[in-house]
């Protein structure tokens, strides 16, 4: 029996900000979930199961928050499960939810991811003072900055490319009412004048710390036929993992990321991603990851990713717009960041992305990665149901 086609019929997110002191974690997730239900024209009783994701419990220090959130998400009496794959978790969570619909385990699933970074301590959560281990001497950006330098060395990319990405994403964010950073006075000069925190990564080329939640309603063909707005259809989805460190690991272009993308393209019958895909939301927490992932995900050949960025191909009006929402660089509630990418891809093919809509987008990719570049999740959504 073929898989059930999966449709995204509802999307909701909070206005992402530095701190939501006015709501509890329950109030935060509720806001996104209610907006997704409204978008789908559904009520709590229409939901068969809830699949939730967030970063490690240590971030906010609430152990197994999904248990406490059952009331807020209408999950009492229904299956509720938690997905956990570090920074990629928002993407993985959506894929687990999609799998439940595709396998006809459930017909309509609410999937949601969140982070309340203002009440969290990510560094404490990630860098426990484990005895006998040499402490990381650098902080979060310091973990990734050497890999950026390795990319620059490998490809000969000029050192301005990172600032072009940040300038683009922050301008795109101005068109997205939900984005955290709205810097109306942004200029390329300002981005380039920003201090180097972990040279070669500038402050202006790093993601913020946000409070926010994102929710989606996934359903089957019958559910999609009743949806008040056009659905996005899942044409392919995959996850891949690899160890944090191993001999031969390519941090610049991890094998697991390549394999994940290849699997998605195979499912979606994509042979030339650069030509066949209209919009990409990829997980770019530091600006240089745009050219790196352009290569890793097959949009550019090895060593060629930065040329697309430099030529303006990834701009909102370029022929392969990347992160029209403003991306992780403009909004980063860690656990939700992957799902926001997946949701933005769906918004694009539903034609509901508002001011950052790519005209005529019919196929879009959402992508997330996490941990020490070891977990990858990606989906491809289309405006039409998958063939067959």
């Amino acid at each position, binding site marked *: 029996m073929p898989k059930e086609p999966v449709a995204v019929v509802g999307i909701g997110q909070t206005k992402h900000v530095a701190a*939501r*002191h*006015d*709501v*509890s974690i*329950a*109030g935060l997730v*509720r806001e996104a979930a209610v907006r997704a239900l409204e978008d789908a024209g559904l009520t*709590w009783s229409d939901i068969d199961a809830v699949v939730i994701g967030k970063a490690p419990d*240590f971030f*906010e*220090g*609430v152990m197994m928050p999904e248990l406490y959130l*059952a*009331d*807020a*998400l*209408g999950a*009492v009496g229904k299956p509720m499960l938690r997905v956990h794959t570090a920074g990629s978790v928002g993407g993985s969570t959506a894929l687990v939810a999609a799998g439940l619909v595709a396998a006809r385990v459930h017909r309509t699933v609410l999937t949601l991811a969140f982070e*309340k970074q*203002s*009440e*969290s*301590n990510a*560094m*404490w959560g990630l860098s*426990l*003072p*484990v*005895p*006998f281990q*040499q*402490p990381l*001497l*650098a*902080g979060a*950006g*310091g973990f990734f*900055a*050497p890999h*950026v*330098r*390795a990319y620059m*060395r*490998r490809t000969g990319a000029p050192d301005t490319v990172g600032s072009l990405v940040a300038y683009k994403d922050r301008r795109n964010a101005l068109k997205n009412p939900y984005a955290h950073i709205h810097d109306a006075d942004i200029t390329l000069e300002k981005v380039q004048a920003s*201090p*180097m*925190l*972990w*040279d*070669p*990564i500038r402050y202006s080329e790093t993601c913020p710390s946000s409070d926010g939640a994102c929710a989606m309603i996934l359903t089957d063909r019958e559910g999609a036929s009743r949806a008040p707005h056009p659905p996005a259809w899942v044409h392919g989805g995959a996850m891949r993992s690899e*160890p944090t*460190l*191993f*001999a*031969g*690991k390519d*941090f*610049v272009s991890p094998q697991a990321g390549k394999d994940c993308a290849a699997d998605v393209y195979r499912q979606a019958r994509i042979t030339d991603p650069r030509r066949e895909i209209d919009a990409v939301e990829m997980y770019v927490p530091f600006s240089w990851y745009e050219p790196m992932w352009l290569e890793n995900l097959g949009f550019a050949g090895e060593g060629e990713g930065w040329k697309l960025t430099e030529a303006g191909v990834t701009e909102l009006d370029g022929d392969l717009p990347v992160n029209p929402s403003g991306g992780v660089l403009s909004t980063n509630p860690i656990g939700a960041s992957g799902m926001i990418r997946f949701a933005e891809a769906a918004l694009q093919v539903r034609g509901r992305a508002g001011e950052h809509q790519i005209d005529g987008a019919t196929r879009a990719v959402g992508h997330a990665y996490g941990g020490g570049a070891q977990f990858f999740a990606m989906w491809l959504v289309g405006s039409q149901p998958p063939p067959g």
Partner: protein
Amino acid sequence: MTDVLSAPLVVEFPFTRSLGPVQSAFLTGLRERTVLGVRADDGTVLVPPVEYDPVTANELRELVEVATTGTVTTWAWNPFPRRDQPLGTPFAWVLVRLDGAATALLHALDAPGPDAVHTGMRVRIRWAATRTGAITDIACFEPYEGEAGPDEPTHHDGEFTDPVTGIVAPARLDYVHTAGRAQSAYLKALAGHRTVGERCPACRKVYVPPRGACPTCGIATAEQVEVGPRGTVTTFCIVNIKAKNLDIEVPYVYAHIALDGADLALHGRIAGIPYDQVRMGLRVEPVWAEGAAHPDHYRPTGEPDADYDTYKELV
């Protein structure tokens, strides 16, 4: 396994919590010796109050005040109180259904012993002398033989002056961390300023530090291989902001270093050279500080830089 090292690992952090409207009213109420519940869609009163109906999932905002007396619905004796628990002497954990409420609240009951506690016993709140808007504003419950409070709770608008909107919730976890055989052997060698990794019998890669198994092949490693002491900087960044808990003057260079003979890089700080002259391919050696478990930093050896092709697979 006598050579395996272990040590305590304590993780402790004060988390902040935004309360939202319902918990804010509840905790501010406790500060004012007022216990608030919330009326659910089916009319029952939930104490402590919740923001969303557990049955209908609707938002709940109708607050009511319940009594400070109630009935124990179940209990467990705690003979050995631990740090930060409500009472320093043995006590009972109790679920108390306050008069007027349909659900029970978890707290401590001050009682001389387990024989003095039973399901169905009547209790009342003992308020803390200093109250801040926290569940600990209820110091504990105590046995109470007086009159019951009203069955019917009274409406409350949940408004207080100077409401509490957030709390601090300290978290502390005590672990014993065991390093394992491979890491213990590695540390023992490091104490003698030797770096000893382990070679995978299948892929022949040398892991430094060793983990006792090859993450690619999934099989145990045992063959010890001494590597270094010299190595090559494969890549690096210049750290310009002080990280918390790190007493290193910025700027400094944080680098990945492939020790000669190792098949993956480890990380360390580069010194003994101006930070802006560090480069990929720089040849370095460890500098040890008295009594430290790991090299303090690495410094240039003065050798010519390694050719990119010799280490590019390790970047």
